């Protein structure tokens, strides 16, 4: 899995490529925690190039959402492919987290 982080209009955009699963979740959590420790208040997770997310990946998103809730920040997720969307639907995360169809829509929603 590759993780790329960029800043767009004050929003930290985290792009994932590959699979977010048991093997890669610790690295993903570490990278996101680095942003939180640096004081990031707005994080957009872009899943355009993510092939699959497992329960371990969902846990990273949940933990991040909790931390941002405590700090008064905001987390959004965009560009889910059909496989990832299905994972969100089965788990119920579609209704728990803030989702957008694409990066532009998500950025506009902050």
């Amino acid at each position, binding site marked *: 899995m590759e993780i790329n982080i960029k800043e767009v209009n004050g929003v930290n955009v985290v792009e994932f490529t590959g699979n977010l699963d*048991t*093997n890669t979740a*610790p690295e993903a959590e570490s990278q996101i925690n680095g942003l939180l420790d640096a004081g990031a208040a707005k994080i957009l997770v872009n899943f355009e190039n993510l092939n699959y997310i*497992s*329960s*371990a990946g*969902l*846990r990273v998103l*949940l*933990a991040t959402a*909790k931390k941002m*809730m*405590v700090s008064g920040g905001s987390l959004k997720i965009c560009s889910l492919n059909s496989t990832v969307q299905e*994972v969100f639907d*089965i*788990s*119920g*995360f579609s209704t*728990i987290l803030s989702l957008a169809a694409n990066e532009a829509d998500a950025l506009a929603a902050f």
Partner: protein
Amino acid sequence: MPNKLNQSRVAMFMSVDISGSTNFKSETQADDKGPAWVGAFEEFFREVPLIMMGQIAAAFIFEDEVPECSVWKVIGDEIVFLAHPTSARQTQLLTNAFYNTIINYDSKIFERWPLRVRGCCWAAQISNRNRQIEIPEMMGSDSSQTYVDYLGPDVDTGFRLGGCVGRGQLILSSNLVQLLAGLEESEGIQFHYVGRKVLKGVYKGRPYPLFLMTRQDCMPKTWEWEAEEDQGLVALRKNEPMPYAEILKLVDQIQNYLNRMCHAMIESLTFDTDK
């Protein structure tokens, strides 16, 4: 070597397995895509962890932190989740999330296949009695990832206890019941004492108390149809949930008996937040 591995903490195990899978595998016909049962198992292994994570998200919606929880083992047609709650409150919410996962997935799998699921939830204090060990032969390809296993009498008890639960139900270890019944807020959790059973190798052959969990707002879906063939359901239908005070008294009596008669301990669960 003393290390962080065996610092005292609670390990919570949540097992879900497919009931009736052996018959199903032997009775289903194969077509050109292979045996039909494969799809049921693929769905089970894929969807249950996702549903569990969704239930955890729902259970912890008003909490600031979510405890670590992941798939620990997959054994045959069984998935075992492992969590490290840091308080009794987190343990309670994890138990609720797991119960909802069992009830929801039991309905879901039964819609598509003649299969059911059942659950067992137990906990062990990682201390002198139960230990956490690294197994070098099982290290991941990334050398930074160590494989950790859990050994001890309270860990073993859960695997025995899981054989005592019927379809669509959740059974809990007595130390877990004791912890949850000691909380002021029930969060809808109800306990039913449904008898005792000797579990091989547990408490020197003395019978182990069997507690089923239900929630008033989310009862096992098919219990009215299966009560005649399932002793746990018979007891569930006969008995109202046991008041928490009676649960605590009963577990205390059992602990005292086991301690005096056979020096077999039921170790209570404690958290740093309790100290």
